[in-house]
């Protein structure tokens, strides 16, 4: 199969998976328990790594930009610079990449193992649609939890930036926070919350698709796990560019 044909085939498979999972959400039986369980694993389970990522990203942003801002005499705008970067871009993307690494790999490995040990076949033989029981709760949990994780990463990033600004550059925390408040617009917040919804869908659908299409035993499980993480990370980054442009146009986001 040539690469273009393969790409189109995979795109078709992923689209079909999303459509089936979406339709399945409205049919009985409802898998609410599975959804809550996945939300716990994805949301609560990923919180520590996302918070750490956000905190240190905010910190390093101030560490790198403060001297430059001070050179131009606008160090009081440090909060604005870090909050805008985090809320518009780094918070959603870094949270998505961390979740892709932690959850995308777990989903793909779990579903892949179920495929090679015939558990998916057994599930179908027992009258359960794996798309509804396994795929839909995972994708929905990712779509619902990633915005919360992003907000948490943003907040901890701003806190991290504030601590570095006050601790290393002797800027008062109040000055930093005032700058943050002045810098954030409602369009930034809306844009920053729309992105993780799409990223959750991307990570969930790619990971589930890679897991369910596993072939070749345990070696195959490793292969699908790797490709799930790599592909979802790349698609998140590519999609981020087009999403940013679309949000800028639709919400009429002004430059800093």
């Amino acid at each position: 199969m040539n690469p273009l044909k393969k790409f189109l085939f995979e795109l078709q498979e992923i689209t079909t998976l999303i459509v089936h999972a979406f339709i399945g959400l409205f049919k009985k039986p409802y898998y609410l328990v599975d959804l809550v369980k996945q939300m716990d694993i994805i949301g609560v389970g990923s919180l520590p790594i996302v918070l750490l990522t956000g905190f240190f990203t905010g910190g390093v942003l101030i560490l790198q930009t403060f001297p430059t801002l001070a050179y131009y005499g606008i160090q009081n705008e440090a909060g604005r610079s870090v909050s805008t970067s985090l809320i518009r871009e780094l918070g959603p993307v870094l949270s998505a990449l961390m979740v892709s690494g932690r959850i995308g790999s777990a989903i793909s490995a779990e579903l892949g193992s179920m495929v090679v040990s015939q558990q998916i076949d057994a599930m179908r033989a027992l009258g359960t649609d794996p798309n509804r029981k396994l795929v839909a709760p995972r994708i929905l949990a990712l779509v619902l939890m990633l915005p919360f994780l992003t907000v948490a990463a943003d907040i901890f990033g701003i806190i991290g930036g504030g601590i570095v600004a006050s601790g290393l550059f002797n800027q008062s925390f109040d000055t930093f926070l005032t700058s943050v408040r002045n810098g954030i617009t409602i369009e930034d917040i809306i844009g920053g919350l729309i992105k993780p919804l799409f990223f959750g869908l991307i990570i969930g659908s790619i990971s589930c698709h890679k897991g369910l299409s596993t072939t070749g035993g345990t070696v195959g499980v490793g292969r699908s796990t790797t490709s799930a993480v790599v592909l979802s990370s790349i698609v998140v980054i590519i999609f981020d560019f087009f999403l940013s442009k679309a949000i800028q146009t639709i919400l009429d986001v002004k430059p800093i």
Partner: protein
Amino acid sequence: MLSPQTEEPILTEEIIEEELEPTDLEEAVDNVERAVPAIEFRDVYLAFDDKIILDGVSFTVRRGETKVILGRSGGGKSTTIRLILGLLKPDAGQILIDGEDITDYSEVEMMEVRKKIGMVFQEGALFDSLSVYDNVAYRLHEQRVDEEEVEKEVRRMLKFVDLEDAIDKMPAELSGGMRRRVGIARALVGDPQIVMFDEPTAGLDPPTARTICELAIKLRDLEDVSSIFVTHEMKNVEYLSSEHATVNEEGEVVFEMEGEELCLINTEIIMLREGKIIFSGKDEELLASKNPYIQKFMRGK
């Protein structure tokens, strides 16, 4: 009443109701239903890319019959089972379950058909994250059955496979044979009238393999279940086609050997080779076959 042309008696509905007792009627209806094969393959073809998996396969499984599918690995045995469950679709031909053509059924329609089929997978295919209880109860939990009833049914099934003590264990704590038996218990929940075994004894020691065969014999002779038993082991063929399960005066299940007094007609064998049926018949005919491939297979070569 006589027919003017044939002078044969014609049974109208009124006469049937008058002359036949209700029990006779029930039996008649039951007999008509029994005449319809549980599973029927009509000229089924399947290929993956250039590789032909099934090449014009036709066979029937009657009610209460066990069809043993023999053959080497890659001969299309497991594929046959997957086709019956609708996990794969044939390229050509028809597949009928209880006289119902399921060939073009959608996944949603197949869900209904699968409710009357139990499937025992090669390694058990138990859900790793669920306990033995939850594995066996899976189908009932999905149907939102009352927990009290679920527990009763799970215990009944685990008693059938003699694994009541393992009810709270996780699949990782079970041996290979125990996993297969839990798989059988899970497949039997809901009392399906068709059960399929996909190499259930592969990799098991002889006594455990024998236990699995005994369970299949019990299902056939005591529960009137139609089944397909995929295997490549001749010992399994010997057990299934020469022993009969019955309940003695003490209420215990005993296994009688086929002999002068007993001749088993509810077990047949088909052998697949490269997607084609090369043998279909009783065990005696298989043993007497002059086909060099079959002889080699039976000698384990």
